[in-house]
């Protein structure tokens, strides 16, 4: 398709969305901070807070 | 255009590396199953 090729040569072909996402360093920064902090640290701290007291055992 | 794309997709760019990678994957799987064997030999715990 000559039209398409022409477009590419002019550099007008749109950049794929995934490529834009990968190039967005600061969005990646945000996700890279948020995911481990929530999934590992915050969830972990919530579990530590909720641990029950040692129950009474019959000797 | 289509033809070119198909040709690209059927190309083996790095057959040597691909072969090395398969060796790696096999070694990985063998090590994994060796550990599974060690695991089932220990006492029950949960």
């Amino acid at each position, binding site marked *: 398709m000559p039209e398409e090729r022409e477009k590419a040569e002019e550099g007008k072909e749109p950049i794929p969305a*995934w490529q834009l996402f990968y190039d967005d360093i600061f969005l990646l920064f945000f996700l890279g901070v948020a995911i481990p902090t929530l999934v590992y640290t915050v969830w972990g701290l919530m579990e530590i807070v909720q641990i029950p007291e040692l129950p009474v055992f019959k*000797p | 255009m289509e033809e070119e794309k198909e040709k690209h997709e*059927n190309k*083996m760019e790095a057959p040597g590396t691909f072969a090395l990678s398969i060796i790696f994957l096999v070694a990985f799987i063998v090590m994994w199953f060796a550990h599974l064997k060690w695991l089932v030999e*220990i*006492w*029950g715990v*949960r």
Partner: protein
Amino acid sequence: MAIKEPERIWWKPFTRDERLWVAMALLWMMGSFVFMPVYHFIGAQNPPSETYRVRDHEKFRALVDGMVAKYKVGEDKGVPVVKPEPGSDVFMQASMWQWYPVLELEKGKTYRIHLSSMDITHGFSIQPINMNFMVVPDYDYVLTLTPTTAGDYYIVCNEFCGLGHHLMVGKMIIK
């Protein structure tokens, strides 16, 4: 080039070897990931997660002493040997640098072994069967343990706990 900016659009289809390798790697990774939850239901060996908070170390020590008083059957090198009933709660106390008491368990029976530390973090490593768990102060870690082989087993501390770390060895007798 890795050292230069790539062409304007680099989002391009994979070649055959790339596609095959990613597919194989992904398949194997999914397999080894799914293993974890699946083995959790079908496997006999899984890391326990039953835990209690021990605010007062004396409370745990009293449980250990109560168990020793009730089930003591002898002494080994000055440490009481305890033979608790199968299925019961068994208390094992870690401190610098001793495992207390010595346990005598029956092969094939299940016990609830409570681990807690009186001072700092220790590592509970049963040798030579090579099973390893952490003992954290202020927490009680409950292992639901079923010994399946008889013999003398030793408990090595495998988390650094000060200069006497290498002296911290305990014992379990499985009959």
